[in-house]
């Protein structure tokens, strides 16, 4: 790059406000937060979470696992997401697909002005390492506008960390992109998909597709691995250094979508056949009123973005009850 071009790029970075913080629209991009557990989780269906904010799809006969790994590209990062092929799909049907993805809330991508004539350029950067070298694909996708763009990238050497920078210079001017608390933008990393989900690269189009026909068939490779970390999506055509947020901040950002609680609100009771409602407030305002699972309450009542009431009936004299062991999901 010439000095003049370098200065022009620097000017662009300044114009886009990429010098300050809050550049990255991706949450948990360095895979610190695994509220559901850090050990291997099998992806054998759709919408399977392991790392917070990232989920896997396995829509076919193949399977893979996701776990937190300390295998990282350099000392800048502590963790990565490690995907291992645990069930080969050697005959991918047209409607089969295997992807790893993260959803970004509409509020957090509204600045891109997608769906308008002011749609902005965006740059995705990430570190990747895989046992299978070759051509891979990412795709940006809107569930509400049903629009996508596929971009190819190359993993040049097997088992070697490589940093990838992908710029989509022209934002999408078409469609109704969510800009509030719905699904604003999804980023797919394709691992092998059928022809129904294959399309052309480098252009916005209608529909839902993840890869080109050049995509490496990772899901067809027994015990193949795929590591990912340092994921950042930012406005503009320049990938700036990874934006490190504190762990507490990253956890709070994740808890807008999912919270796992391990025990709250112990009570002791006198009398017989007591019925109680214990209020519990989320640590942050959740994206939507969440679904609650795993609670030991008789019922989880009056659920809102702020909290809920755990109701328990028939508590005997002298008994104790602890509202405990529940998860709240307001995922996109």
């Amino acid at each position, binding site marked *: 790059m010439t000095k003049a071009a370098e200065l022009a790029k620097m000017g662009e970075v300044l114009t886009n406000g990429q010098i300050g913080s809050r550049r990255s629209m991706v949450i948990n991009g360095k895979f610190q937060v695994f509220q559901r557990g850090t050990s291997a989780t099998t992806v054998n269906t759709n*919408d399977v979470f392991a790392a917070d904010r990232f989920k896997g799809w396995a829509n076919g006969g193949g399977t893979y696992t996701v776990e937190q790994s300390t295998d990282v590209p350099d000392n800048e990062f502590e963790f990565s997401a490690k995907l291992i092929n645990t069930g080969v799909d050697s005959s991918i049907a047209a409607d089969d697909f295997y992807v790893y993805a993260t959803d970004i809330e509409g509020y957090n991508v509204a600045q891109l002005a997608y769906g308008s004539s002011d749609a902005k350029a965006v740059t995705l950067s990430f570190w990747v390492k895989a046992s299978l070298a070759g051509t891979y694909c990412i795709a940006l996708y809107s569930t509400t506008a049903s629009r996508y763009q596929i971009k190819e990238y190359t993993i040049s050497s097997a088992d070697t960390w490589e940093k990838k920078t992908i710029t989509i210079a022209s934002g999408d001017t078409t469609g109704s992109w969510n800009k509030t608390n719905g699904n604003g933008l999804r980023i797919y990393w394709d691992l092998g998909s059928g022809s129904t989900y294959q399309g052309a690269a480098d252009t916005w189009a209608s529909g839902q597709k993840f890869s080109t026909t050049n995509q490496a068939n990772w899901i067809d490779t027994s015990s193949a691995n795929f590591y990912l970390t340092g994921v950042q999506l930012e406005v503009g055509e320049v990938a700036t250094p990874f934006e490190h947020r504190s762990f507490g901040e990253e956890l709070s950002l994740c808890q807008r979508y999912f919270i796992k609680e391990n025990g709250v609100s112990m009570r002791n009771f006198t009398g017989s056949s007591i019925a109680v409602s214990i209020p519990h407030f989320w640590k942050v305002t959740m994206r*939507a*009123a969440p679904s609650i699972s795993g609670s030991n309450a008789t*019922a989880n009542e*009056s*659920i809102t973005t702020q909290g809920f009431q755990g109701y328990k009936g028939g508590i005997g004299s002298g008994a104790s009850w602890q509202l405990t062991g529940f998860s709240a999901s307001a995922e996109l």
Partner: protein
Amino acid sequence: MKITSAQYWDRDGEHNHIIATIDGVVMSVPFDPDNIHYAEILKQVKAGTLTIKDAE
């Protein structure tokens, strides 16, 4: 998303939330259209593939 059962939970004579089994997990699902589980329940009810049972 596989929903195998859905039933209202009532409080003081009014529907408070839905207890549903989704992908094998029992969940309390609030009536929030931005909740993806509730949105899917509505979708399946509209398609005629799911019925929400009355509260016991």
